[in-house]
């Protein structure tokens, strides 16, 4: 039961990209198309699951001072295996598109982060579930970004061109003209920024709604916009001060480290 919870908790509540803000480099670089995103997520998940299990198995034998070095060696070993496997299995185009980001899984902070935060403290089965859950979360995040970028940026879906929809002689949906920049570097930043904003909007709404239900007596503080350069007001002003700004700090969901790990 609790093992299943290790898995089901991860994809949404601890989503590696949108909640923990880890593994940004591959997220932005390979999401030009759905195929690339899925291949990247599969490769990362394979390394994550294997590394999690092995690190959890050896966690009692590794001296504390050199644990990070040991984890890196374990991860690098699995990355090499996945690299060779990808060369053998995946089509040439995908290998070319992912390029250096397959060997760069070795410095992906999701994997080292899970090794340090989870696998070094839990048993192999729980670590397996954790790896799968985080991997599914990574897959969902990459699919969400890649979907937007491929459909809007290239006018294709899983490689198939979107064609105009016609009913008889009339065109219901005309031929889509792609916004090419979304497939290029700037588009990656902008799409992921807007998605972050969307999720934080949804998160804020939910939290506000939950708070209204929980403490209906507390009056809401007016004002949607932050007053810049001001410390949050005293607790006296409306309890938790729901719309009090915290300038230059990310707003979305709760379990967030103070800074993205490098």
């Amino acid at each position: 039961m609790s093992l299943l919870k290790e898995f089901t908790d991860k994809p949404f509540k601890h989503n590696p990209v949108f909640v923990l803000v880890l593994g940004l480099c591959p997220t932005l670089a390979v999401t030009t198309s759905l195929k690339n995103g899925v291949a990247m997520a599969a490769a990362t998940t394979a390394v994550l699951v294997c590394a999690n299990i092995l690190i959890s198995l050896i966690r009692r034998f590794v001296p504390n001072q050199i644990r990070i070095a040991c984890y890196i060696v374990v991860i690098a070993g699995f990355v090499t295996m996945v690299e060779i496997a990808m060369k053998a299995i995946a089509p040439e185009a995908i290998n070319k598109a992912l390029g250096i980001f397959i060997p760069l899984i070795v410095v992906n902070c999701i994997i080292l982060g899970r090794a340090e935060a989870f696998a070094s403290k839990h048993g192999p089965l729980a670590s397996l579930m954790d790896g799968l859950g985080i991997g599914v979360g990574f897959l969902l995040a990459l699919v969400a970004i890649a979907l937007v970028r491929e459909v809007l940026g290239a006018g294709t879906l899983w490689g198939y061109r979107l064609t105009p929809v016609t009913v008889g002689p009339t065109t219901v949906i005309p031929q889509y003209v792609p916004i090419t920049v979304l497939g290029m570097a700037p588009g990656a930043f902008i799409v992921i920024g807007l998605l972050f904003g969307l999720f934080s909007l949804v998160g804020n709404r939910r939290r506000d709604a939950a708070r209204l239900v929980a403490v209906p007596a507390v009056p809401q503080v007016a004002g949607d916009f932050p007053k810049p350069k001001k410390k949050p007001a005293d607790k006296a002003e409306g309890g938790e001060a729901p719309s009090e700004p915290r300038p230059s700090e990310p707003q979305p969901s709760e379990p967030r480290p103070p800074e993205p790990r490098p």
Partner: protein
Amino acid sequence: MEVGYLELAVGSILISNVVLAKFLGLCPFFGVSRRTSDAVGMGLAVIFVMSIASAATALIYRHLLLPTNLEHTNLLGVLGLPVPEGGYVLILKTISFILVIAGLVQFVEMVLKKSAPALYRALGIYLPLITTNCAVMGMALLNTEAWRDPANGLPVHLATVNGFCGGVGFLLAMLLMSGIRQRLAERRVPKALQGLPIAFISAGLMALAFMGFTKLFGIAV
């Protein structure tokens, strides 16, 4: 034809900027860019480590991993050890690069602590972060395949220059980003976009501006 230094510099700093075009080193780019002093410290530390790491990894790649041919010698082969037909590239590249970079960062940290305490105080806290900075590893990997000779990669001296220039490009991007974020902190930003989302969108606009450097001086990266 060998690549020129100026070509490398323009290519790595402006045209294919490590952060804005290659998507490397994004975690420190967003994590440490709130204050200019932090951004500069991190940028300098990255320049330092990236130059050394590029030199070391290029040395290993060209003279230990690749099979022997006219251009480069495989030292293991010279010593009489067996070298497989494709060299050790496929099986040892990733693992040897990460170990060299991790070891190098530790070593640099110790040397700085002992011999240059002032520099260590300025850069010290950023050094451990750099081990898992994908910009350093990414640059080392790019050096092995970039610039017109994907089979052999850059020779050691050019790889070092490329690493240095990549670091300068990183510093430039960090500096610009920290300026933008300080201005952003004083502006009214819609609540949902505060913090990270607006930083991403600003970075996107910066990347758009950097796309204007494409084909600058006719250099194709």
